[in-house]
């Protein structure tokens, strides 16, 4: 922990083994194993490496955005525009390639520039103007999604150069480029959160912004970085998604309602809605858990009508745990 930082949300000290067992990540991993065991009992044939690899590949894109969301939520903010940014970058890159004739690489860079602008705008309106980030990013979701539709007139931009699909077809170790990118970024984010001054400042910002400022943390700068990183990661996810499609296209429907899935995964992963608490590994496990539930309910042959309520029940459970943890900390 960075000397002088403040984190009011940290749990009271307990001895080593107990602390590890009580860690949200360990509880989550245990729950995940139980769930996989349950699915196996219902349908042993379907629990195999192919299914696992498919789940890991599917969770990669929301997982990437979730890493940005962890930083933002630890800092006490939220971003509801990520799903729309996924769509914007895909559509913008496709438009630049098809209508303007830019090379694939340059189109990707410019599209990520668009994502960066959205992040900066979210930060500016939240931190400078003082509007709640929930409202700012909700409004931004509508604006950005509208821009995507405007670019395309609702019709996917298609066909695109064959090289767009190159990354999407790669299968390193049977998984995907998106998944290995997620693994690498999860490790980096976790190290940044736990081993650096910036990470400590982030926890302090989300735990108690005034105390953090007194301790010399540039809270606005820290939050701006988080907003920008979240949008950029959503942009990267959009480009990778476009690359993974059977016929790559810039489709404005990409990422629709995905922001809610991402937030659910992050909260289930132990990231506090109140700020100041959470980890990249927790978010990774949370998003993985949500995907295992989604796929598992199909694999375990549960009634399709009960699949969505099941996700709601898991979210409610995670939020109740978070509220209880918060109350315990305040007491």
């Amino acid at each position: 922990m960075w000397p002088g930082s403040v984190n009011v949300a940290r749990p009271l000290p307990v001895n080593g083994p107990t602390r590890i067992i009580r860690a949200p990540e360990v509880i989550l991993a245990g729950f995940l194993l139980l769930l996989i065991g349950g699915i196996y009992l219902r349908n042993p044939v379907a629990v195999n490496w192919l299914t696992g690899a498919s789940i890991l590949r599917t969770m990669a894109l929301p997982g990437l955005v979730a890493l940005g969301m962890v930083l933002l939520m630890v800092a006490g903010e939220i971003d509801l525009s990520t799903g729309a940014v996924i769509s914007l970058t895909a559509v913008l890159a496709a438009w630049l390639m098809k209508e303007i004739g830019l090379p694939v690489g340059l189109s990707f860079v410019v599209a990520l520039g668009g994502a960066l602008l959205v992040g900066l705008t979210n930060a500016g309106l939240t931190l400078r103007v003082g509007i709640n980030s929930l409202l700012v990013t909700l409004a931004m979701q509508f604006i950005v999604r509208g821009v995507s539709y405007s670019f395309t007139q609702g019709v996917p931009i298609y066909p695109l150069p064959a090289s767009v699909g190159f990354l999407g077809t790669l299968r390193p170790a049977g998984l995907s480029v998106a998944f290995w990118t997620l693994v690498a970024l999860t490790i980096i984010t976790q190290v940044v959160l736990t081993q650096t001054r910036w990470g400590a400042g982030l926890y302090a910002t989300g735990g108690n912004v005034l105390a953090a400022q007194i301790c010399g943390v540039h809270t606005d700068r820290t939050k701006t970085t988080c907003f920008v990183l979240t949008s950029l990661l959503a942009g990267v996810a959009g480009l990778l998604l476009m690359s993974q499609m059977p016929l790559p296209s810039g489709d404005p429907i990409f990422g629709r309602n995905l922001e809610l899935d991402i937030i659910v995964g992050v909260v289930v992963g132990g990231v506090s809605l109140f700020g100041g608490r959470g980890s990249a590994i927790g978010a990774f496990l949370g998003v993985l858990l949500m995907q295992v539930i989604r796929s598992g309910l199909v694999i375990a042959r549960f009634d399709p009508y009960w699949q969505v309520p099941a996700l709601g029940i898991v979210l409610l459970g995670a939020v109740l745990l978070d509220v209880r943890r918060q109350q315990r900390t305040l007491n």
Partner: protein
Amino acid sequence: MQKVVWFSVILVLLLAACAAPAPAPVKVLPTAVPAPTTAGVTGKFYWVQNTAWHPVHQLTQLSFLEGCADLGLDCQLATTDEGSLEAFLALADQMVSQPDTKGVALWAGGIPAIVPIVEKAKANGIAVCLPHFPMPEGTFASNAVQIAADTTKYPDAIAQAMCAKLKGQKGSVAVTENGFNVTEDAVAKGFTAGMAKYCPDIVVLPPEEEGPEPTKAIAKAVSIMQTHPDLIGALSTTGGGPTTWAGAQKEVGKQIVAIGMDYTQVNLDLVKAGQVYATVGQPLYDESKGCADLLYQMANGKKVPYWTVLDAPVITKDKLQPYYDLLTKMTAKMRPTPTPAP
């Protein structure tokens, strides 16, 4: 830092304003006194629809306007980009309340919530056409007619095509829907019955919801493929279905006989590339254009049957060209053509 942030805000707003050139004007401007049309009918005809941006919906709008132009009718689009039922109902109510309205086509999704609106239209002497989502006769007042493929019959042809392709094979076939609704449920039910009739050795699985977002839809389809290693075919009752099942086959590395819905560019190309076996040509063009004709006839006091039944053919690789031609004609009107450099 502050300057950068404000610059970004302004830039994003400008981007939103200038993202694309305005689409070609398709709406007819309102006139103070309705002029008699060449068809001899005085008054306006409206196409009422929500989620107006959707490519399939755009196709229907343009088809309706084409039908109006052929008949010399004064038609307008009354559409909203919102997807909610409330937005649609409010719009429909406004249109049947206009004093100069002669007819409305309601893209209503087969919902009984429009019953009072149809009754209000009847009271105001307005003809109503209901495209695409068939409902039993007697559901609505007598001023309403419908034009659509028969969801109890065309799934039978899909099952026939699927069974012919899977001839001699045993295993299971999946069914996925965008969302559980009256039309998609009926197609799923009809398909299941057809499969039992034509290839009783093949098991049709209960329908699963794939939703509109492609990553989630593909993940769901992959789960279905993993759960049922004997899966040899799939039917999706939604326009995103071909992408869903092509994506799932790519993920799992196994080829199945997949059939989806609608003749969008991507879907036709997936059929052409052999990534899905076929797509079903729901009669979007004919039913939308046909609505203009039905409204015209009713406005002229002619009696038309409650249901004009249209065909929804299974489009395989050898039957693609007419649909490509239709799309070329329609999408030219949907997407603004970039201005060539001087």
